[in-house]
């Protein structure tokens, strides 16, 4: 469907994108991630024919964007970061204009416009000036313009930025729906969005592709082990005695709270302390059941047990900061960006990828970002 071959873009001596290489199959929803200035927008602009690459070629259905631009552009729907709207037009006249511009058959224009209006929930606003629309409605109108000609490939540059959580959910549902008939490439700052929407993700940093794969399989892709955090009603010593003989699991105490140290003596006996622990298996095998029987056999009640995933934020940080540490000056900025993104994540509705303690990361990456990460999760 889409082939990006060794594409580079150089802006007046400054490198925008360097030898980018990836392909997309029909029906895929691909998330495009990267810190600010990584080259996401530049790449999308090259795919849509707004910019020509300095080197390399981009093919859509085997046709070069650069050489047969017109043919290719009619197959692509593109929503730039700020929706390209004319403030002085009404919603209806804008959609009509875009439909005509994008080769919608003349007799279908009316039908298609009303279809878009109802599909994107713009009813009752057909005659309203674009200038007076709220940000969310502008985004919807921009999206309507991008899909009005039923494109094969849909390129969305941060489609949910600046929307409130309800609107984000609506737009995501819409994108998911669109993904059934179209191929979608979307860039985003909100990491959980990728795991809820996309079946593949690309991470780009400083103009280069650093990761390509499915967000669901990232744990194993990153050489991850099975991790469980538990809270057990026992002393650290008791727990240690039980777990040390069990060789396939490495254990590590995160927090041990001793009830004796607290003033509240009425409700607890002398032995009632709790230990929080992180257990790491040797491989990806699920050892939770075994753990349950082991501890219950030893008479140590499990208060809490939770499987830990290597979250997208961690993958993202790992990939984009280790790259950046090569050039020290940039690393601080990248961290800042990542932090900002994590803040943004709070706004979003999905928390299936809630961040966990930074200690669960493999030791190969740089320590500073992890300690920072640890602070965040507290």
């Amino acid at each position, binding site marked *: 469907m889409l082939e990006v071959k060794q594409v580079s873009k150089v802006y007046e001596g400054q490198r925008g994108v360097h030898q980018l290489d990836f392909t997309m199959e029909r029906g895929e929803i691909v998330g495009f991630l990267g810190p600010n200035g990584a080259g996401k927008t530049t790449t999308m*602009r090259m795919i849509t*024919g707004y910019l020509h690459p300095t080197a390399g070629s981009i093919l859509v259905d085997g046709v070069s964007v650069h050489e047969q631009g017109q043919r290719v552009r009619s197959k692509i729907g593109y929503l730039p970061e700020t929706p*390209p*709207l*004319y403030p*002085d037009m009404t919603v209806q006249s804008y959609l009509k*204009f875009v439909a005509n*511009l994008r*080769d919608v058959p003349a007799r279908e224009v009316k039908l298609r416009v009303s279809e878009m209006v109802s599909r994107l929930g713009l009813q009752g606003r057909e005659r309203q000036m674009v200038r007076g629309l709220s940000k969310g409605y502008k985004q919807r109108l921009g999206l309507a313009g991008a899909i009005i000609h039923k494109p094969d490939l849909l390129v969305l540059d941060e489609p949910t930025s600046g929307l409130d959580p309800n609107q984000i959910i609506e737009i995501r549902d819409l994108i998911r729906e669109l993904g059934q008939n179209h191929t979608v490439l979307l860039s985003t700052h909100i990491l959980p969005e990728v795991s809820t929407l996309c079946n593949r993700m690309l991470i780009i940093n400083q103009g280069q592709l650093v990761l390509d794969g499915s967000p669901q399989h990232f744990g194993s892709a990153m050489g991850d082990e099975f991790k469980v955090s538990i809270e057990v009603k026992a002393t650290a010593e008791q727990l240690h005695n039980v777990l040390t003989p069990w060789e396939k699991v490495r254990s590590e105490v995160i927090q041990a709270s001793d009830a004796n140290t607290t003033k509240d003596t009425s409700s607890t006996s002398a032995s009632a302390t709790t230990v929080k622990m992180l257990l790491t298996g040797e491989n990806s095998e699920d050892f939770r059941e075994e753990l349950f029987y082991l501890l219950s056999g030893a008479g140590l009640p499990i208060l809490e047990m939770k499987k830990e995933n290597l979250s997208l934020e961690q993958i993202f940080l790992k990939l984009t900061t280790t790259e950046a540490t090569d050039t020290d000056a940039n690393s601080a900025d990248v961290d800042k960006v990542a932090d900002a993104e994590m803040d943004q994540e709070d706004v979003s509705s999905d928390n299936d990828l809630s961040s966990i303690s930074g200690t669960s990361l493999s030791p190969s990456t740089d320590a500073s970002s992890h300690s920072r990460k640890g602070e965040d999760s507290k």
Partner: protein
Amino acid sequence: MRRMMAVCNKELQAYFLSPTSYFAFAVYVLMTSLLFYSSFVYYQPSIVDYRLVLGDTLSMLLFVVPLLTMRLVAEEFRQGTDELLLTSPARVTEIIFGKYLASLAILVVLILCSLVYPFIMSFYGTLDMTTVWMSALGLLFLGGSMMAIGLFASTLSQHQMVSAVAGFIILLVLWMLDSFAGNTGSALQQWLDPFALTNRFDSFMKGVLSGPDILYYVTLSGVFLLLSIQIVERKRWR
């Protein structure tokens, strides 16, 4: 073709909604009617000849045309809507011609406005209608090439005012070309003369439809439209 008409329609809508075009029209009508008053009503005895009025009012185009064209492309760049146009299947040629066509339509309205003066004159004597119609046609050619220049100026910047000033300067240079080299008859002057904007207009005012003059205006428009297309196309190579 349909895409070109879509762009043209959109521009016409924008013309009718933008306060700038009303302002430009108001300036044009106000100034030309003042000049009409001074050269026809105030100046006695009144001579019933449209060309006398037209000659005076012609220079008003210098101010009005940049006002009417400055928005055309500059605003697209500023609003980021060029991203919509350049990623649509429309060719840049279609986009630029669509915009040019809209500006020509506005020019026709402007010319119709200025035909009010010969209409008033016709009550006070017999007008030579041939020269009136030919002048109107000449105005279309002259104004058309000026619009093309204004459109070109509009592609140079994303700020409307910069575009307007650039357009005004280019027009002024071409307008004054015949008086630049100073004393008439010098070799440079003779070489420059045929390129001056207004010199070519004289034949229309005389009621003569001259091939070279039409060719001049058409070529001038063509050159600036081509330059506009190239400049917009070049944006892809930034």
